């Protein structure tokens, strides 16, 4: 088994925790050779898990072929198949897992189940060179402040209800914004927020190290509907409050752990305003500030492939009979022997 650092050993990674179906080919020495994706866009409302899973099943073959062709890699060059085993939406996860099991058995190569949150952290570290950061992982489904301690990525703070990305999405839909393919709601809110001038007071909820966004969401929608400010003003205020909460909790984790780096990862990491606020606290604590590049920020197959490679190289693989998905798999339940610390 060519399980080494060789550039000629490749892992195929499958991501399907939510609305994205992604397949990527990554070499064992950490080069992303392809990162194909097809995203499910609901006609109205949020992600319907079964509809999204149906989408994933429909595009699977196309995305897989694209990933192999772009990477110029033949199926027999693949020596490991990694898939997102959780956390996420059950039907979506199962679609990706089914594809991964079939591929692993057809190609006769090992299978490794990857924790989606670990994927976001590891791809951020790979792309930025961060070694031991405090990580703020922000997306549609997760909001987690973590740092590595004693064998695991420990959670220092997290949302008590909805994720920040979900908060922005639901707000955008509630005020009548339209989603476009390739332009997530977060980007639309960010654009509008730049035009905002007047701060509308909204609830700021930090409980110890944890956060809550549901009250903020309701208040922001109400502020718009009751005309307390223009749409731009409310977008501006929503971002200021939500991102200040995230920054405060990250700063506390940074002060507590005294880590040398701050890493921002996940889909919401693309937001420039959030980047600038975290940059300020990183500088104040003499920490290097690292942001995952845009192409690897949202859910993608490359992060699953890379986290799979790291796990596999430290002796971890997932036998088919243990490859059932875990929709609530927590970050700190993952033993991470590949991290030095």
């Amino acid at each position, binding site marked *: 088994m060519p399980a080494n650092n060789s550039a000629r050993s490749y892992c195929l990674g499958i991501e399907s925790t939510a609305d994205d179906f992604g397949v990527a080919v990554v070499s064992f020495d950490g080069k992303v050779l392809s990162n194909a994706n097809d995203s499910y866009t609901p006609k109205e409302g949020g992600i319907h898990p079964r509809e999204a899973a149906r989408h994933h099943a429909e595009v699977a073959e196309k995305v897989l072929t694209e990933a192999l062709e772009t990477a110029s890699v033949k199926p027999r060059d693949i020596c490991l198949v990694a898939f997102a085993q959780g956390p996420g939406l059950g039907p979506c996860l199962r679609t990706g897992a089914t594809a991964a099991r079939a591929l692993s058995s057809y190609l006769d190569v090992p299978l490794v189940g990857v924790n989606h949150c670990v994927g976001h952290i590891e791809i951020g570290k790979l792309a930025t060179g961060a070694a031991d950061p405090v990580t703020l992982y922000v997306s549609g489904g997760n909001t987690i402040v973590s740092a590595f301690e004693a064998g*695991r990525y420990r959670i220092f703070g997290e949302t008590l209800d909805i994720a920040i990305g979900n908060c922005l999405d639901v707000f955008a839909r509630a005020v009548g914004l339209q989603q476009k393919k390739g332009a997530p709601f977060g980007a639309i809110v960010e654009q509008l927020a730049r035009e905002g001038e007047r701060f509308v007071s909204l609830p700021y909820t930090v409980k110890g190290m944890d956060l809550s966004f549901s009250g903020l969401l309701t208040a922001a929608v109400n502020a718009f509907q009751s005309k307390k400010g223009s749409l731009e003003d409310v977008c501006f205020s929503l971002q200021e409050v939500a991102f200040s909460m995230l920054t405060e909790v990250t700063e506390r984790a940074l002060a507590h752990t005294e880590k040398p780096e701050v890493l921002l990862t996940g889909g919401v990491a693309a937001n420039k305003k959030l980047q600038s606020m975290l940059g300020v606290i990183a500088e104040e604590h003499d920490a290097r500030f690292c942001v995952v590049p845009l192409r690897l920020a949202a859910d993608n197959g490359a992060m699953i492939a890379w986290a799979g490679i790291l796990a596999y190289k430290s002796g971890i693989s997932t036998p088919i009979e243990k490859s059932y998905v875990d929709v609530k798999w927590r970050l700190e339940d993952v033993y991470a022997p590949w991290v030095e610390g």
Partner: protein
Amino acid sequence: MGGGINVLIKKGAEASLYLETWHDRKVIMKRRHPKKYRIPELDTMIRSQRTVHEPHIIHEAKKAGVPTPTILEVDVAEANIVMEYVEGKQVKEVLDTVAPEERLRLSGLMGRMIGRLHKHGIIHGDLTTSNMILTPHGKIVFVDFGLSERSEELEPKGVDLHLMKRALQSTHYKHAKECFKEVMKGYAESVGQEETKKVAEKIREIEKRGRYVAER
């Protein structure tokens, strides 16, 4: 602030503590500095809310029968709280070195005081032995209510005591077990056996969550 000494004694992520003189008294000034990443409107709002909230809860705790520093002056605009300087030592410094009977007495006393807080719907939010001062008269004064909140629910009470347990395990690991047992005994004296049973059950549930998997 009237001249005098002005020594930074603790710099946290949220606030700094200074030793000062105030009308010829030795006092602690807790100052919440502005945060550059926040817009001024929000920054002022958060700092002033917390500057109002903390003395309020400190006063409530005192009413519940838990010794806390006396608040001398609150400057909401500057986000400053001036409070009594409590003479004594942090429980953290003495717990491991005192005689075994005294260690048990202190643990029981901590538990009784935590029980009084919870009985009155006050969650401290940061229960560690460094946030408790042992006075020369043998009383324990609770300080730093910066993360406190009001709640009558079981979950935050369980989290509060779980934090206490973790603080004992990390800082006073030699005596953590006996100390926490006494904390819970003292707690029961304040809130009753039935409520203590429910809270203890909650603590077990919290520990079993993935979050605290290392302590399983």
